[in-house]
């Protein structure tokens, strides 16, 4: 019996007259890696932000571990402790070393004692291959390293689910691989993940399910094999063709 970690029903987000997305339904099982793809401006990032309550949806409900987190009286800070988030532009705390970036949440949010927190932070850095950079500041790290520290920071909180918002879009091409590698290992280790990305190679290889969003709604979803080889809709086919063409060319140039 698989355990459903995240359930989204009829989620709607509107800015002014602008409907970002409407009536989104999505279910994520424990251990699954869901990859959300689609043209930019279709509300993929906003959807992730709604899931960890950084943005308030206008309608619909979200459940995390069978507990509704869109209730009015929910403790948002508590909810966010259980949801890890990785951002496009890393957003490391720029005045803290890599180690302190990972450690801070453990000490201040989880109230761990300093020695235990330091040990755990170090282990998390080891997990993303950066224990030798523990005492470097973000400004002294490459983009790929910064993003790996950001992943370690999120993982340190022992989240139930990890959200990735275009984690490689701000990286130079040669740095993308190291971040995807960390994410691949995480997925293999059984972490539940929702990933917004344009990396079709990653989607194809790692995703349990690919969700194609366009113009604020989910067009179709299915296994990578189904979506890439037997898409139901012309729109899906066109998007995949376009993006594979674009990124395929890049890959050949490498």
């Amino acid at each position, binding site marked *: 019996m698989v355990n459903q970690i995240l359930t989204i029903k009829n989620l709607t987000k509107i800015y002014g007259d602008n409907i970002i997305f409407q009536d989104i339904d999505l279910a994520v099982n424990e251990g699954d890696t869901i990859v959300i793809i689609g043209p930019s401006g279709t509300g993929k990032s906003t959807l992730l932000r709604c899931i*960890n309550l*950084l943005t308030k949806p206008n309608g619909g409900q979200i459940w995390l571990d069978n507990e509704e987190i869109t209730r009015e009286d929910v403790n*948002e*800070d*508590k909810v*966010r*402790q*259980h*949801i*890890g*988030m990785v*951002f496009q*532009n890393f*957003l*490391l*705390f*720029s*005045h803290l070393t890599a180690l302190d970036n990972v450690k*801070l*949440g453990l000490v*201040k*949010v989880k109230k761990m004692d300093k020695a235990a927190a330091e040990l755990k932070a170090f282990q998390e850095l080891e997990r993303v291959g950066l224990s030798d950079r523990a005492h470097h*500041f*973000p*400004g*002294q790290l490459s983009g790929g390293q910064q993003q790996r520290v*950001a992943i370690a*920071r*999120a993982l340190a*909180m022992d989240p139930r689910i990890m959200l990735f918002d275009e984690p490689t879009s701000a990286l130079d091409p040669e740095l993308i691989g190291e971040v995807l590698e960390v994410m691949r290992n995480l997925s293999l280790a059984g972490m539940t993940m929702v990933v917004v990305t344009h990396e079709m190679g990653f989607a194809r290889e790692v995703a349990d399910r690919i969700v194609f969003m366009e113009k604020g709604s989910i067009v179709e979803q299915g296994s990578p094999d189904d979506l890439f080889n037997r898409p139901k809709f012309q729109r899906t086919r066109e998007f995949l063709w376009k993006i594979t063409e674009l990124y395929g060319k890049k890959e050949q140039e490498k």
Partner: protein
Amino acid sequence: MDLSKFIQYIASGTSYTLGVTLIALPSGLILGLIFAIIYVYGGKIAARLMNIYSTIMRGIPPIVLLFILYFIMSGNINLSPFWAGSISLGIISSAYQMEIIRGAILSVSGGQMIAALAIGMSRMQAIRYIVLPQTLRLAIPPWSNEAAIVIKDSSLVYALGVPEILRRAQLISASTQQPFLAYTTAALIYFALVLMTNTLLGRLEKSLRIPANP
């Protein structure tokens, strides 16, 4: 009167000048910090109130405000001119320091707050552990400018009769008929104080700089 006694008389006001500064500057910092946080994070009404406070305080000459605040205070509580003057200057400075800190808060990227919330911190924790440490670093250069202004403005309490540097220069100039010497001595002492303060703050800025690759 020989020269060394002349200078010594004026220089002995330095303790008052320093005293006024060391009360006014930190109290202005604490108030300014609290007001800046309320301004930025306190919602629309609080921001409006802080803006009014800032506009009024910065729109009136400090000497006029000093008299107003002094007479409010000495009318209600029994405070010596030294304390009343120092606290008044602190209140005046708080408006300027609020603007300095507000500017620094706004130049910390908004993403830092979002990242802090994303690991489960409350807004207060995010402000305290993430936003403020970066803010205060950014605020040091403009703040050292304000520190110089407060040192110099401490001379305004001469008008309340506090025997600080300027007051003493004025007294000795009147009794010896040597205004040039008296005021030049005062000027040099103020200048030395400002120079030392700026040097110290420059060092502080350097030692707190966050390491980064060029």
